[in-house]
């Protein structure tokens, strides 16, 4: 009986155990449901392009949905690539200052940042997130992997293009890495994904890598302007090479200006053309209003599909405050943060004396009248003789009337009876419609004159109502002139595609032709080749586009490094170039003074070690292979 019972019992137990244990161990082999494993992801042929969209999009967006963040530890939108790049390149210079109180952001303008600065750390991790994406893309698209998945030749060709573009994007981020941080950890697709300690390579070593990468991919990229808008091409690679070469002395100690010139010339003959108007470059439709012809590489934004509170949404919103009307900027409301210092404003002061000196010799012909400085009694505003019988003058006038006369004497004077550009001796007074600066010419050979308002530099875009020029309190938006450059409206003033005005459409120009023209002139001056005539020609193309006429043109004699440094600021301000430029001209830290630099109201110089940002303390702790930059 007992035996039977035991047998029976054991029988039941064994049955239960086998039934239940039978296929058990594989229940622990689970697969993700909404996320995709590598096999699942690449079953879909479109996933290669989607991965590339993330690589390019890593500059524009912040995560996989609006509330998701690629970078942890800092609010998702503060860690947007373009936003951080702007903050680190602009706030630390005379071009921008911010009113907000977020953490240690003021340390950027004051140049007192420490290795714990969360914005510097976020930029660092953003750069490595980008590099990580590219490395993973390259690992997933090796010949072996593609063959293993049975990818056909047409797709393989497309993927080859993607691989070249991905390497460009990695080179771009490594460039940002050495520009900001100097010697940095170095990883490629040959490294594994895990928790190891990457080696730190010197600035020169990473420079060499970037150089060799770009040269390798150059033949693989599409011809300039022939790829889809938003993707890299040969022009982008040339421009990036030109950038690393022009800064080579800073990065490696060895100047490479001649190499820079080679690639600058490639870019300039790449089929690009300056956009029709300066302000069009920074409007919501800058991918179609003519500005796209000037763009060598841009980060694209769209108020519905490419959204986030970084990128141009950030720059546009943050720059609006005080009495500025948000509707003009196509947004829901300004965030009252960014404005500029008086040092930057001064760069636009029309140097009339200089312009007049450039006209020719002083003559005895002059302007007289209620519109002139001294009214009808004189002394007259003397004109300059530009050639026989031709006279010209840049003059600041008020609304009123003028006439031309010789040697302060009414005996020999000209006016215009019909206000039609023709002169008659003793003619009627010529009306000046409004206050302003005018460019006036007189031709006594055919008795004509011209009167044109000197519109000046349209790149000067300040909002001064309610703003003071000097900054007493950096935390007060109304201290410091506001800047109206970035606007989320099209050329007709219509708001971008997001009706609520929350997200902006403005594409962010990373590289554009005007930059290349300026680089040509600079490289020429630094002895890298080229000639003065061509250089001046390029500068004048930029200035004619800015002034709307030849009124701002310069002579070759005016070309100097100082002029270039100021002209780069006037043309490229708030496009995230300034810090790199100032460092190259050695005006970022131990030279150069602007309001609140160094944390004092009138500004002071800072230690040369500030030319490099510190490696974030979190990574110094995490990676014992790293040595911190000097001074931190």
């Amino acid at each position: 009986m007992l035996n039977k019972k035991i047998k029976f019992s054991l029988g039941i137990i064994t049955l239960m155990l086998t039934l239940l244990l039978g296929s058990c161990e594989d229940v622990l082999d689970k697969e993700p449901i909404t996320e995709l494993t590598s096999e699942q992801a690449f079953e879909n042929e479109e996933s290669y392009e989607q991965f590339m969209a993330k690589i390019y999009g890593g500059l524009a967006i912040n995560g996989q949905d609006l509330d998701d963040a690629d970078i942890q530890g800092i609010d998702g939108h503060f860690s947007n690539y373009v936003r951080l790049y702007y903050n680190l390149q602009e706030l630390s210079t005379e071009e921008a200052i911010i009113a907000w109180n977020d953490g240690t952001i003021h340390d950027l303008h004051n140049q007192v940042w420490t290795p714990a600065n969360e914005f510097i750390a976020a930029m660092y991790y953003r750069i490595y997130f980008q590099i990580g994406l590219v490395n993973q893309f390259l690992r997933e698209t090796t010949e072996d992997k593609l063959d293993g998945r049975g990818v056909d030749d047409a797709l393989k060709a497309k993927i080859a293009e993607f691989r070249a573009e991905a390497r460009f994007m990695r080179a771009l981020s490594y460039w940002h890495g050495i520009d900001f941080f100097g010697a940095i950890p170095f990883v490629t697709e040959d490294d594994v994904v895990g928790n190891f300690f990457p080696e730190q390579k010197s600035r020169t070593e990473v420079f060499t890598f970037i150089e060799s990468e770009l040269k390798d991919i150059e033949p693989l990229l599409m011809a300039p302007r022939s790829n889809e808008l938003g993707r890299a091409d040969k022009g982008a690679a040339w421009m990036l090479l030109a950038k690393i070469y022009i800064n080579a002395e800073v990065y490696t100690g060895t100047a490479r200006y001649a190499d820079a010139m080679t690639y600058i010339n490639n870019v300039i003959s790449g089929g690009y053309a300056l956009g029709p108007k300066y302000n069009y470059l920074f409007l919501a439709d800058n991918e179609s209003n003519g500005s796209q012809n000037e763009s060598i590489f841009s980060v694209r934004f769209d108020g519905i599909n490419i959204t986030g509170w970084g990128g141009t949404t950030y720059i546009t919103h943050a720059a609006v405050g005080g009495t500025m009307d948000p509707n003009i900027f196509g947004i829901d409301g300004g965030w009252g943060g960014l404005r500029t210092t008086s040092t930057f404003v001064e760069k636009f002061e029309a140097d009339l004396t200089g312009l007049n000196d450039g006209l020719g010799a002083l003559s005895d012909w002059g302007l007289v009248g209620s519109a002139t400085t001294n009214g009808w009694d004189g002394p007259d505003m003397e004109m300059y003789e530009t050639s026989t019988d031709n006279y010209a003058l840049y003059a600041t006038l008020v609304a009123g009337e003028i006439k031309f006369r010789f040697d302060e004497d009414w005996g020999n004077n000209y006016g215009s009876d019909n206000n039609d550009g023709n002169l008659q001796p003793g003619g009627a007074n010529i009306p000046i419609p409004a206050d302003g600066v005018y460019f006036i010419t007189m031709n006594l050979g055919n008795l004509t004159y011209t009167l044109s308002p000197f519109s000046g530099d349209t790149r000067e875009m300040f909002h001064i109502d309610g703003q003071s020029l000097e900054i007493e309190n950096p935390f007060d938006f109304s201290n410091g002139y506001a800047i109206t450059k970035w606007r989320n409206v099209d050329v007709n003033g219509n708001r971008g595609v997001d009706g609520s005005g929350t997200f902006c459409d403005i594409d962010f120009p990373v590289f554009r032709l005007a930059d290349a023209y300026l680089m040509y002139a600079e490289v020429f001056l630094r002895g890298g080749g080229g000639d003065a005539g061509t250089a001046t020609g390029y500068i004048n193309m930029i200035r004619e586009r800015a002034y709307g006429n030849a009124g701002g043109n310069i002579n070759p004699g005016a070309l100097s490094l100082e002029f270039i440094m100021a002209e780069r600021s006037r043309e490229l301000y708030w496009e995230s170039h300034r810090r790199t430029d100032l460092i190259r001209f050695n005006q970022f830290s131990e030279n150069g003074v602007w309001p609140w630099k160094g944390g004092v109201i009138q500004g002071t110089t800072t230690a040369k070690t500030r030319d490099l940002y510190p490696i974030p303390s979190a990574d110094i702790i995490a990676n014992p292979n790293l040595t911190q930059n000097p001074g931190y």
Partner: protein
Amino acid sequence: MSANNNPLIVIDGVPMDQEADNAPGLSSVNPNDIESFVILKDASATAIYGSRASAGVILITTKTGHRNAPLRADFSTWVSVGTRENQVSVLDADQFTAAIQSQGIENSIALLGENDTDWQDEIYRTAIGTDNNLTVTQGFDNSSFRASVGYTYQEGIVKTDDFTRKSGSLNYRHNLFNDTFKINFNIRGTVSDKNNADEGARGNSLTMDPTQPVYSGTTQYGGFWEWLDADGTPNAQSPKNPLGLLEQNNSVESIQRYIGNVKLDYDFPVEGLKANLNLGFDYGQTDGYWDVPATSASGFDDLGTTGTWNNLRRSTLADFYVNYLHEFEKPHKIDIMVGYSYQDFYRENATYQISGQGAIRETEFATTNSLLSYFTRLNYAYDNRYLVTFTYRRDGSSRFSPDNRWGNFFSGAVAWSIADEAFLRDSETISTLKLRIGYGETGQQEIGSDFGYLPVYTPGQNNVRYQFGNRFINTLRPEGYDSEIKWEESATSNIGIDYGFLNDRITGSLEYYIRKTTDVLSTVSPPAGSNLSNSLFTNIGDLENSGFEFSVNADIFQTDNFVWNVNFNATYLQNEITRLNAVEDPESPGLAVGGIRGGVGNTIQTQQVGQAQFSYLVYKQVYDSDGNPLQGVYEDLNGDGQWTDLDKRIYKNPNPDYLLGLSSYMNYKNWDFNFVFRASLGNYTYNNIASSEGNSTSLFFNGTNRNIHDSYLDTGFGEVQLWSDYYIQDASFLKMDNAVLGYNFNNLKEGEVIFRIYGSVQNAFVITDYDGLDPEISGGIDNNFYPRPRTFLLGFNVNF
């Protein structure tokens, strides 16, 4: 630092899903239904529950019917009134006006109003609640049942916060084959409807200008006073009217939770051999809807937004074990158990929202994981005086790669019932004396991602695409992963003495434990470039927790008319991080944790080797001769003449050193009176509201005035000083958790009917030096804490 610090709640043998955030398992049980509530901390006892029991186990058994019992019903009800007992101290209208004027900013002074509004008063209210429950039980020859239904309505002390819950449960037992086969069937369900108060209202009530009125007197924006721009549209950056947020924004959810299990017990014909099979499920679903109307200030730009969210959680459990109990040659007794357990989890959630402008945002996510364990336990007792236990468990989790999937965990314990020895057996003075020594290992795998070891790709939503030419393309992102991630293992050793004096009139225990955890699972920043993300869940280091516990339970009085029983317990706790994998340098400040408000990405705590978890890393504030802090002046601890991060040092932590509890039960004739006290000593809290809002720069921001914390009146800080140790305060407290006074009508209807009426107060009072809202804040950072109300309750039970 450890992945999961919550005890495992086991209800009728079904472990609850610890990650469930809708109606956590504990609240799905009606307190009236609880038969027993046992807390297991002993290493050996928790080991049998496996990986999720690292932080202890709470075993709840619900009441079942009894056999051959007459039909009885129990009805209980209470009503409660809850009030706010504390508020955050911000400036009042007069102090605010003075502060703004002393700043001297014209634009700011021009905005001052003439009202005196206490915004916190405006958003809080007295909360009413009621709970009603009816239970019916009956027992028959071979079966019994117990059924209950309940209805609860509870308001929150923030206006528009409330929930209604209907619950039902059934327990049915049936015995077959001469009591050798027992079936125990349980099912519990709750259906709740919840109205959620707008989340921003509490924060805005602190920063809203007290000189402004609540209502604007117009019909714009719902009639609420709001900050407006010159063109009459709402200012995008300033706080919105908190009462407006509460009354105009809606958020409603309906939550369903069903938990059930069937337990089959079979007694084999072989004596002492039993088999037990437990099959359980836990299903929860939430469906929510929210909207922000276009007519409100916060909905103005988007032209209003509506949205939905849906969650679903489902888990199934199968437990099977065989138990053999044999007494041979008394006094030897042996008990062997072999079994296995399998639990599978599935979770999904989805959100959707659309604005009046047509902007759509949606997300969806689903995931699954499972646990499988094999275990065996051997118990040996000699004469019930000497007890030895040995347990072995092998646990597997789907969350680790096949190479790291399995963990082996051993535990053992010995106990010696000294009081049963010959020399003490008849002693009445020492009626109980038991020495227990135990050692237990458990594993931990409650981590953030179910697939942290696999490279996975996450698709991007439609509003974060990128554009090539004219085409928008959705993105695909590879996630960071650690293929080597593995079990976190805790080894706990404990030694304790259970004592009882005077015939167990006084009982208690004294215990020492030390728990060493290795390969702690937590989030770190991996070295840049080594992974695909700057935040990785991985095994990061070792931790040690230890403590002493003392408890005593005394029946002070035990007469016919008067009974008084008091229980006191005290625990001394220590914890220390013994190793951090990523940090080899013992001098390094460690890993930054503890995010705070007042800027972006700032942290206040660190995990450093040799220190307690979550220690605060702050500057040492310097004070002037009157004892006032000097703004921005800290001790230059490294003597380099500058104030840099290197001058921060570790100062205190949020973990208490001592936890004390005292509960008392008194019964005099028909009256009973109970109360519970609880104290925590040595825990420090960081008052983040004071640190981020207690300075004058916050007064005028982006064109509007904002209220600030009144610590400004003491510090006079012009700028935010987040890392000053001035804001780290001793939050030791003594709380009276509740006090109950009740009266029992015992002799109604010849003892057939028992009627009890009682009144109680919960969260009666707090004694503390901490000047923030509440000294008991998990994690130690006082930021946006929902205040605990003081509740007065009146109720009665009738059993018939």
